[in-house]
Structure formats: structure tokens, C-alpha cells
């Protein structure tokens, strides 16, 4: 690299601010030869409290009054703790408790703070001091000694000569954390394949559609035009384990449109029932529940990142960052009039993942 970016032209005058870089290149900095000189410190201006003894006494009074006030605040906070107990089932009592303990503590803290600062500003000696700066780098002598120490240590241990020892040590140090990495495999269950888990939900042929959260099965006739039902598979609430995990994949939104408003894909004819359609509620973007159904436009909106899906057009994306349409759950009606799933979803629900294809 160039030795000196300025070709040394402007640097002749050295500079006005030369700490710690005797010989440190100034790069492309321009050092003005006829720079205006630093005029030195302006004259000190005394404060009112320095000149007027009554002002000084007043300031003193303010400071100790504030400290006493802080004690009042602390006592008030303790008193409020006792005077405003929390009455079970009464949120108003929590509000009072929070408010008055808080205000007491605020006073206690603020008064100490303002008092101390006022003391420092108005009463303490206010002439500014000056510290010298020294270059951050160690002195040449120190640095030479440091290098020597390393050289001595190197020759005394022989780390430079005994290469086998050195290299095997480096190898050992690299190898020893590896078991720890392996140990972290245990963060997830050992014998499951995540991609396979993501590809299935609780829905299977014949599972009834049930109301969230009660689990009551839904009849096709219950669903009037313009309705939106939040649906879970029947039996979900009875699961011992994994209820939320299953719900996170199986949650469905059920809507009824006029059959003529539905523009169904040819391969999905028969997935709906008399204008009733069921779509996964889990956004194909990053997994928020897409549940904002506008019954007039038949649009579904995700409140997290504003992806919009058109229910009348097999839930294709019309706005927002999502790419894939919401997966449709094929539904039918069983002999008792209840809505049932024809099968599981035919594709993984929720956010995309690498193994998905």
C-alpha cells in the first residue's frame, strides 16, 4: 500500500492534535498549515451560589428537603403496600396497589436523584479539571519487553520446535468440544423425523369437524351463509399429550359461500359441500392463524404480515408475503349430517420448510 496518502505534502506542519501517533500516518487528512490557534480555556464564570450566600443556603435547603422528601416517598410506598391490599377478583384493587406503591417509590427515587444532581451542580466545587491523555499503545520499551516475554516463553516451552506436541494439542483442542455439539442433538426427541411430522395432521378420513374450543361436532345445516366457524378435529380436546402441537397443524376455518361464488379447481371438485369450504388456518408464510374472514369479499387476512387469501379462488394469495394458497381440507357429510374430513390435508400445512416439495 502507499506509504503516505498525502505524498507528504500537507503533513509537513505536523498537526495540532498529535497524541499517540508519533509517526502514525494521517492518511488523506489535510493538516492546515496556518490553522487558527486554540485560544485556551475561556474565563471561569462563577455561579449564583458562589456569589450570593443566600442562594447557596437556598440550594442547600432544596437539597436536604429533597432527601427528606425521598424518605417520605419510601414510607408512603410501605404504607401504600399495607393500605391498598389486593382484594381477590377485584382488578381495581390491583390498580390502586400498583399506582400508589409505584408513586411512593417514584418520589423516593426521583427525590434522591434530583437532590444529588442539584447538590453536584449548585454546591460542589465547579471548576473543571484537566487530565492528560497518553497514547493507548504501550511504550516502545513495554512492547519490546512483551515480545521478549513471548519469545522466552516460546523457547522455554519449545512450542516452536516441538511441532508434534503443538499440532497434537491443537487437534485435541479442536476435537474436545465436538461431543458437546453432539449432546445438543438431545434437544429434540431422538427418533422422529421433523419433516415427516410436519407432513401429517390429526385429520383423517371420517374425522368430524368440531367447534373450537368446545369440541362439539358441526352439522352442515348449522352453517348459514356468511358464517365462519373455527374448527378443530373431533377428539383433539381429549388428547392426553400434544394437544397444542396437533392444534397448531389441524386448526381449520370453515366458511359457507354461495356455491356460485366458489371458483373451484377441477381436481378439487367434491372437496366442498354445498358451498361450505374448509381451509387450514395456519398461514403458509410463517404460521400465524389466518382467521380474519371478510364475508362479503370472501378474503382472508393474516393479521401478522397481512397476507391475503381469496377463499372464492381456492385461497390463492392476492397480497402480502405468502406464496402458497392455504391448504384445503376435503370435507363431506356423514350419515348423521355431521361434517367430516374426507382425508388428511393433501399437503403439509403451515410455513414452508426445506424438505417440503
Amino acid at each position, binding site marked *: 500500500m502507499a506509504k503516505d496518502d498525502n505524498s507528504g505534502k500537507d503533513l509537513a506542519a505536523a498537526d495540532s492534535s498529535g497524541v499517540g501517533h508519533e509517526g502514525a500516518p494521517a492518511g488523506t487528512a489535510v493538516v492546515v498549515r496556518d490553522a487558527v490557534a486554540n485560544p485556551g480555556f475561556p474565563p471561569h*464564570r462563577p*455561579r*449564583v*451560589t458562589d456569589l450570593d450566600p443566600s442562594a447557596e443556603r437556598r440550594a442547600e435547603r432544596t437539597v436536604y428537603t429533597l432527601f427528606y422528601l425521598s424518605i417520605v416517598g419510601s414510607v408512603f410506598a410501605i404504607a401504600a403496600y399495607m393500605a391498598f391490599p389486593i382484594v381477590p377478583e377485584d*382488578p*381495581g384493587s*390491583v*390498580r390502586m396497589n*400498583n*399506582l400508589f406503591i409505584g408513586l411512593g417509590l417514584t418520589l423516593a427515587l426521583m427525590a434522591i436523584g434530583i437532590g444529588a*444532581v442539584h447538590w453536584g*451542580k*449548585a454546591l460542589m466545587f*465547579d471548576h473543571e479539571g484537566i487530565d492528560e491523555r497518553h497514547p493507548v499503545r504501550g511504550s516502545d520499551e513495554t512492547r519490546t519487553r512483551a515480545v521478549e516475554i513471548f519469545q522466552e516463553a516460546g523457547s522455554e516451552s519449545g512450542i516452536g520446535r516441538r511441532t508434534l506436541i503443538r499440532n497434537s494439542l491443537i487437534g485435541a483442542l479442536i476435537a474436545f468440544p465436538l461431543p458437546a455439539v453432539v449432546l445438543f442433538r438431545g434437544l429434540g426427541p431422538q427418533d422422529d423425523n421433523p419433516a415427516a411430522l410436519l407432513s401429517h395432521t390429526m385429520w383423517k*378420513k*371420517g374425522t368430524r369437524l368440531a*367447534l*373450537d*374450543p368446545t369440541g362439539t361436532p*358441526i*352439522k*352442515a*345445516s*348449522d*352453517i*348459514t*351463509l*356468511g*358464517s*365462519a*366457524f*373455527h374448527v378443530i378435529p373431533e377428539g383433539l380436546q381429549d388428547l392426553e399429550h400434544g394437544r397444542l402441537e396437533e392444534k397448531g397443524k389441524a386448526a381449520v376455518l370453515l*366458511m359457507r359461500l354461495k356455491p356460485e361464488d366458489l371458483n373451484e379447481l377441477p381436481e378439487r371438485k*367434491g*372437496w366442498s*359441500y*354445498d358451498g361450505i369450504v374448509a381451509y387450514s388456518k395456519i398461514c403458509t408464510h410463517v404460521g400465524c*392463524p389466518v*382467521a*380474519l*374472514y*371478510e*364475508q*362479503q*369479499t370472501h*378474503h382472508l*387476512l393474516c*393479521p401478522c404480515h397481512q397476507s*391475503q387469501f381469496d377463499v372464492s379462488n381456492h385461497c390463492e394469495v392476492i*397480497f402480502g408475503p405468502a406464496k402458497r394458497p392455504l391448504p384445503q381440507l376435503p*370435507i*363431506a*357429510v*356423514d*350419515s*348423521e*349430517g355431521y361434517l*367430516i374430513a*374426507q382425508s388428511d390435508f393433501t399437503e403439509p400445512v403451515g410455513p414452508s420448510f426445506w424438505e417440503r416439495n
Partner: protein
Amino acid sequence: MTTINKPKSAGRRKSGRRHPLSSVALIAIGLLFTGGAYAAFSTSTANAETSATSQQTIGEGKKLFAANCATCHGLAAQGTGSGPSLIGVGAASVDFQVGTGRMPLQMDGPQAQKKAVQFTDEQIATLAAYVSSLAPGPGLPDSNLLDAKGNSAKGAELFRINCAMCHNVAGAGGALTQGKFAPSLDGVTSKHIYEAMVTGPQSMPVFNDMNISPESKRDIITYLKYLENNPSPGGYALGSLGPVSEGLFLWIFGLGAIVALTVWITARSN
């Protein structure tokens, strides 16, 4: 119609009925029954009202309708290009739309907005009577469903599942597509909340009694009234808008106050 696995499930559950058409018959019966029950329920409400309101009221309602609503909804409420048909929407719908000032519509926009109510309570009642006389539809809710004395915990859970995604968990409202929005529920009367659930005004889906039972609707109202009557225990709620208003408040007022104080601390005392 899809009827794929009926024989199997029917066979398993009710072993005596194996005729292939039995399931179809059953559905038909089921549909008829529920539909009929619903119709009966609706008409009984309507009937009750009709009997309570005289033919004269309906006549007055018709006049009011012709003067104020017919331009968009048509003289016989059959609907026109600029307004939907009101046949079968029921008294609940009229009471909600007119009672919250949304109707008559003031101007075109993404959605009808709440504004000063244009009619007296009597006028609204006559309008409702007229519209519900055209065809049965959801009637006005029973006052014991509006007393806000249900189970607020159940109501809150249902609210979170069915309502919070649009109206926000604290009922503060939220955005929909194309400039539409779900309004704040703060200060909305129990009756109007109930009517909105039953009728599904504008973008809002319908929540019929099979989806959320009248008792559950009462629970939801109980929860909303609980929120309204119990100010946040933590202090002023900053609009209940969540982290956005909290962050904005912190930056502007919290950090703003602290920066102002730093200026005081480092200013020279005079």
C-alpha cells in the same frame, strides 16, 4: 354432494339401519328438522313482534323506509345496484345498522361508519317492524341475554377464538383489507354487540346460534362489559394497541423525559 364413507360410519354406529338410501333420508330429515326449527324460532320471534306492533307501526315504518332507505334498497326493500336486499335480514339487522348510525349511509367509502344516530328509538322500531314484516329474520335479542352477568372466562375464550383476530383481544379494533376495519368495541351497547354477531354486518361473518349459542353470546358480552367497566390494573392502557403504542410511548415520553433530564443535569448551574 359428497357422500363417501357413509355406509361405513353409519354401519358402525347404528347397526340396524343398512338401507343404502337410509343415510340420504336421514340427512334430509336432519336438514328439514334443523331448518324448520330455525325457521320456527325466527318466525316465533317475528310473530311475537308482529303481534306487539300493530299494522299501523308497520305502515309508518314503510313510510319512513320509502323516504330514507328506498333510494338504495328499493321501494320494496328488494335491493338495487347501490344497496342490498333487506328481505329476511330481520329486525336485529335494522336495529344495529340504524341504531349505531351506520345507516342511512352518509357517503361512499370502504365501509359504513358509526356516526350520530339519525332516527329516534321509536322510528327505528317502526323501521325494524316494517323490515321484519317482509320476511322472517333474526329478531331483537332477549334482554336477559344482554345483562352481562354470564361467565366472563368462557366469554373471553370465545372472544379470543372468534373475534380477537379482527377486533383485537381487548376489543380495540383492527385493520382489514382495502381500508376496511373492525371497529373498537369500547362503548358499544350489549344489544348492538349481540345484533352484530347474529347478523354479520358488512365484512363481519355471521355467528349464528349453532356456532355461538345465545348463552355464549351473553358470555362474550359479559367479557366485553368486564373490560369496559374495569380499567386496566396496570394503569392507563395506551389504547390497548399492544407493543406499537408501548414502544412509541417509551421513545417519545420515556426516553424524551430522560433526555430532557440529561440536558438539565449537564447544563451549567448559574
